[in-house]
């Protein structure tokens, strides 16, 4: 299939207008396979992606660029019960998931 999503890059451009990810600790809820994650994670200090779909999390983990693996993590979890400590993140991103 020839599907291409947002080749103009509007989503990335606007996302960066709305939040400064530089050195930030970011929680992404509904990260899926990490399509959006890779548009900001390199700038962050820590990125944690959550998704209830184990298969999607596996793909995100497998596609992680080697140089980002130290500070980008993906976990299977639901937003209804986030297995993380309180007040840990500067930015939360609801990625096509509300």
């Amino acid at each position, binding site marked *: 299939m020839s599907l291409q999503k947002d080749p103009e890059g509007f989503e990335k451009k606007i996302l960066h207008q709305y939040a400064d990810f530089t050195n930030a600790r970011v929680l992404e809820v509904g990260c899926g396979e990490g399509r959006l994650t890779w548009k900001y994670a390199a700038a962050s200090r820590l990125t944690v992606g959550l998704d209830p779909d184990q298969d999607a999390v596996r793909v995100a983990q497998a596609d992680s660029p080697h140089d980002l693996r130290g500070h980008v993590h993906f976990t299977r979890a639901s937003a209804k019960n986030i297995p993380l400590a309180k007040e840990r993140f500067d930015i939360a991103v609801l990625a096509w998931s*509300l």
Partner: protein
Amino acid sequence: MVHALDEIRRTLTPDGILIDLRPVEDNWLVEVASQDAVQVAGKLTDVPIGQADDAAAFRAMREVESLGWFVREREQEFSFFYYWDTPSEMKEFIDTEWEDFEKIEDSVLKAAQSVWASANADARVRVRVKMLITRWRKIQEPPSR
């Protein structure tokens, strides 16, 4: 949904921000785009399940705003395009991936096929998805007495 937003709020620092980025149903346009021109072929049809999901999301955000958990700082709409090489590939995707929230009527598909066939050789079909991005700021809880 509100419980999930409370969980997200719990993980945020006292002045943390929440970015809500999502598509909003609005009978998205089907277009044929080439280097030189963009032609509108028609509109997709919103499906009730998707409309209900959108309504629930807006309701949840209004509720957390009224509860004083977050304050809305900034918001805008923008376009997010899905492109396919051919109308049939577009239809296959819509029928399988978007079945819960959008459908393409035969008349719109036929119009897209007609416009695409007569357009320049580099023409592709695309759907203009309406996106909404909102930045919310966590409101600090008053110190307990």
